[in-house]
């Protein structure tokens, strides 16, 4: 009699239905995967660099970066840097190995979108003279368009 009652209680235990739960989770995973936007960060602001302020609402593009800080110019795409003193006058060495590296980079990335554009990231207090000399070196090397990076109103 006691055994019979125990059997009756066991038969009333709630069983968790796993199949529909897994189905719903699969749906959620598919939804999340498809909703994810994978995007490369266009600009990484170096520490200690103060960007200029702009009214422009344009977004930045993913392109090779050149960073002009108060003491050096970094050419990120060829992993090279030069002291800022080399750009304060119009006398950058035309035989500098960066020219050959730029040409090689342009040849290697000719099919890549925006590879011949440059994101120029400069400190806001940098003189126009220095910025112009850096841009001149890049233009001589074959880069077609300069994108001057600044902080927009909405950022």
């Amino acid at each position, binding site marked *: 009699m006691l055994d019979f009652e125990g059997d009756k209680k066991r038969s009333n235990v709630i069983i968790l239905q796993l*199949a*529909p739960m897994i*189905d719903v989770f*699969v*749906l959620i995973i*598919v*939804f999340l995967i*498809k*909703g994810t936007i994978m995007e490369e960060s266009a600009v990484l602001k170096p520490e200690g660099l*103060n960007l*200029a*302020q*702009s*009214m*422009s609402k344009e977004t930045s593009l993913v392109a090779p970066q050149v960073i*002009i800080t108060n003491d050096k110019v970094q050419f990120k795409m060829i992993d090279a840097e030069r002291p800022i003193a080399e750009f304060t006058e119009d006398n950058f060495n035309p035989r500098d190995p960066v020219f050959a590296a730029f040409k090689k980079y342009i040849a290697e990335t000719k099919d890549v979108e925006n590879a011949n554009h440059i994101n120029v990231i*400069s*400190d*806001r*207090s*940098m*003189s*126009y*003279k220095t*910025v*112009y000399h850096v*841009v001149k070196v890049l233009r001589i090397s074959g880069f077609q368009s*300069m994108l*001057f990076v*600044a902080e927009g109103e909405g950022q």
Partner: protein
Amino acid sequence: MFDLESTTQRRHAPEPDLVPILDGLTAVIFFMLLSISFIGMTKLTIPPSTSSVASVSNDVPISGRVIAQLEGDSINVKLEWLGNKPGAWAEKAERKQPTERNLGLIEAVEKLAIRFKEKFPEEKTIQIALASKLNYQELISVMDGLRKNELYADLVLSSYTEAD
């Protein structure tokens, strides 16, 4: 006896479990819906051919140029052009610290750009030359003034020697 046998056969007939099939199909429908991208078909219309006689133009290119020069504590912005009837306009703006946007400079450049656009609506490109001592923030402000309201999209940097 016959009736009993037929009842037993009906009970053993396979019944497909529809619930997981429906769940699977719903997942596939979601997947397909989210994978769809709609692309508008473009229509290319070729205009009828015409012939015209080309004439050699003696017009000098306009070559609009914005020059920003330092004058004490202020910035003198000049917009000059060549063409058959060259000319220039100028505006003044107070110089500010590079820590903030120079709204006065942006407005001065914008004023000049609007006048230039009204005078030469066909011109798409404008050159910029800043004095060597002006800074990157001021370059961005000049560009802001020229690009405001999509006045000029193509900007070309000129040497500081033209402004010094």
